[in-house]
């Protein structure tokens, strides 16, 4: 009897029922999306903690340059950091290239003879371009992790001394930060 009444009421209020059903479906999808986002963020955080084990995996050899088996101008442990970070933060190819350009430019500042004015100026131009490129590829909002490379590269006393000598050679310099079309290396 009651079931019959409900059926009749539903028939009479078809529009209301449809509206409520649509609303429920919408809420269900929205909740599902939020739950997905929550787990995605949680998993990113988890990966971030795992990733942070880099302090144990950084190369601490005695030379300034460190190992670069694939000869791409980037130390192998820094290559690995970029690779891991790109996966965690879902960087696209152009963003990965920009961060690699930055890692390479940073490595150059350590390995040049900073007393050589031309080499020092070129290295400075290199970091300037790489910063401009990172800002460009990340739509002016680069993730903080992309700028950790400088710290991770300068991770031994020998490397600090080399980097300090480079920065000392730059003291007094005046430089522009204007964007140029060729900031990103192709």
């Amino acid at each position, binding site marked *: 009897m009651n079931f019959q009444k409900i059926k009749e009421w539903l028939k009479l209020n078809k529009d209301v029922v449809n509206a409520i059903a649509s609303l429920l479906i919408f809420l269900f999808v929205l909740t599902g999306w939020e739950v997905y986002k929550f787990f995605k963020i949680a998993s990113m955080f988890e990966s971030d903690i795992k990733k942070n084990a880099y302090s144990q995996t950084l190369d601490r050899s005695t030379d300034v340059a460190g190992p670069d088996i694939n000869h791409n101008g980037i130390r192998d442990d820094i290559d690995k950091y970029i690779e891991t970070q790109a996966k965690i933060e879902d960087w696209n190819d152009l963003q990965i290239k920009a961060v690699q350009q930055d890692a390479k430019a940073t490595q150059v500042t350590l390995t040049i003879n900073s007393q050589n004015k031309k080499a020092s100026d070129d290295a400075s131009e290199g970091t300037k371009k790489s*910063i401009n490129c990172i800002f460009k590829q990340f739509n002016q909002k680069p993730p903080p992790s992309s700028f950790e490379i400088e710290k991770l590269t300068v991770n031994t006393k020998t490397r600090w001394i080399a980097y300090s000598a480079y*920065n000392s050679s730059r003291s007094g*310099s005046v430089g522009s930060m204007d964007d140029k079309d060729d900031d990103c290396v192709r």
Partner: protein
Amino acid sequence: MTIVFVNIIGKILLAIFILTVIGGLLRSCSSPLKNIFTVHQKSNKSVVIGFFNGVNTTEKQTQKNVKYLKDSFADIKKPIQYEYFYNYTDGLVNYNLEVFEQRMAEQPLLHNHYELLFDIMDEGGPIISSTIKDIPAAAGAIASLIETSHVLKITYLTNEIAGKNRSVKTSQVYREHLDKAKKFNKEGKRLIFLAHSQGNLFANKLYESLPKQTQKETVVIHVAPASQIKHGGHVLADKDYVISVLNITGNVFPISVKIPDADSRPPGLNGKIDNLGHGFVEIYINKELGTYRQIRKYLNLALSD
């Protein structure tokens, strides 16, 4: 018909001739009108904003800061050239390196973890957090290093204000900055100096070395000034714990703006929060804080001058 046409053309040419003569007279005469004309010329000069970095900053970090500075003023329609006038505090970095090496001898867990030095000098950062997660036993040693680095920074800045850190290298830095500023001036560019922390000492020195006429056209904006002299408006946050400590040891300028406590402070453009309240990007050009609005006010004033 032809006569009327020739007559009109003749009158137009005569009017052009008279206006050209009056214009020429105005340009060459030494009356107050000339000054009006000159002021107008000045306001049309292109602008260079020169940024002067604070202590413990690498050139790469300075380049990045200027990029953020440029980004935070991106809505200004006037064409502006952003330049950095770099200075490096070798002495302070070397002190930090020495202390770090000594402490690491006492704390083998941190052996050769020099990547920590950047964050230690910044008194916090992601490398510190991750290292403590990896090596919890190192937390005490890191805290102690931060404390020592803080004392070194304050001592260094106090000596800098008192002029005790001057060296041949410092004079060379001044000279190089001056040469470049003169070059900009020669190119017809007007200078606006935006100096942060210790950078104020370099900006002051450069301003004082400029010819009087160039000084008149130059504006200095002092941000968190670690100096006792100023040549323009200053911006100092009430919770800037680096400059407030300097206030105990040497006179610095009064607080100009209040900012929220560190735990309720919005991150800066670089996504970071600076607990010390002193960071240029985290605090002073953070669009959510009054510090940015004050800098912007001084900048707008300078640009409309």
